[in-house]
């Protein structure tokens, strides 16, 4: 049983932790990359203006970009050249060499809603199951998934978003999809 004092400590600690996950978009004049003396800075849109209206998230831009697109809050253009072919692929790929961690489910759908096939294939990832050997070390170095995750897509501290499938569930999926 925790004492009153310990409860109080927990409260302060929790408060300290949650302040970190609040959306805290900086004005451009105080974000450390813009020069406050730049003459046209006040003409640019500030992050809070645009991002506060979108589905919230706890990391990155504090915006759930995939949901923002899916729910129609934003409708970014898919192409500039009229002849560009738009392909969305609804195919999940599982990476099961994850030691004790949950199996990684890579959903093509949200990725191809934003990206073109050639962005990943075949420069970063070869096509075909089992063709790519990579691990968290290379991802943290900015290779493979780490080209975007940790830079513009949700950061690498969000382990559970990729390592999302428990072993038992994965085995069931395997059974259901493997031809008898």
């Amino acid at each position: 049983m925790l004492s009153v004092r310990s409860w109080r400590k927990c409260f302060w600690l929790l408060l300290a932790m949650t302040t970190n996950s609040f959306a805290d978009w900086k004005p451009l004049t105080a974000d450390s990359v813009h020069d406050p003396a730049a003459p046209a800075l006040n003409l640019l849109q500030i992050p809070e203006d645009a991002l506060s209206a979108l589905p919230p998230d706890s990391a990155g831009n504090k915006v759930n970009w995939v949901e923002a697109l899916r729910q129609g809050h934003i409708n970014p253009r898919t192409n500039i050249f009229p002849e560009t072919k738009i392909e969305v692929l609804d195919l999940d790929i599982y990476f099961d060499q994850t030691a004790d961690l949950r199996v990684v489910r890579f959903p093509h759908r949200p990725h191809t809603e934003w990206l073109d096939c050639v962005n990943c294939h075949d420069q970063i990832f070869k096509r075909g199951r089992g063709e790519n050997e990579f691990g968290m070390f290379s991802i943290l170095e900015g290779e493979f998934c780490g080209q975007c995750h940790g830079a513009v897509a949700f950061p690498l501290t969000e382990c559970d978003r990729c390592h999302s499938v428990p072993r038992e569930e994965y085995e069931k999926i395997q059974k259901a999809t493997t031809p008898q």
Partner: protein
Amino acid sequence: MIRIQARRRMFLLTILAFVISTQASAEYGDVVLNQRAEKEGMRPVVFPHWFHRIRFRCKVCHSELGFEMRAGANDVTMDEITQGKFCGMCHNGTTAWAVENCDLCHTGRPGLASGIYGGHETLGPGRW
């Protein structure tokens, strides 16, 4: 007495955590382009990914316009932009502001190195 001190310490720790969490930092995915800008007497360019991805999907710039995914891998010159390549595909006065508006893109703090900035949770992969 001891209890008051402990409480004060927790209070100060909380304030410290709050200050750290609200430190000035770039928006996640902000890219600084300064391979040429400052050598040519201009402020570095700050490219905000958040602003652009509201309006365009990644593939427009990273596939149609030919921007490499890795920050620092794109050696973009003003000549190319003026000719309608890279940023110039949209920054032409029709889709977005034209190249004459130097100060709208060249807004970076002098001395910044090229690369990807921001990051609420991580500072991005080490090699950048």
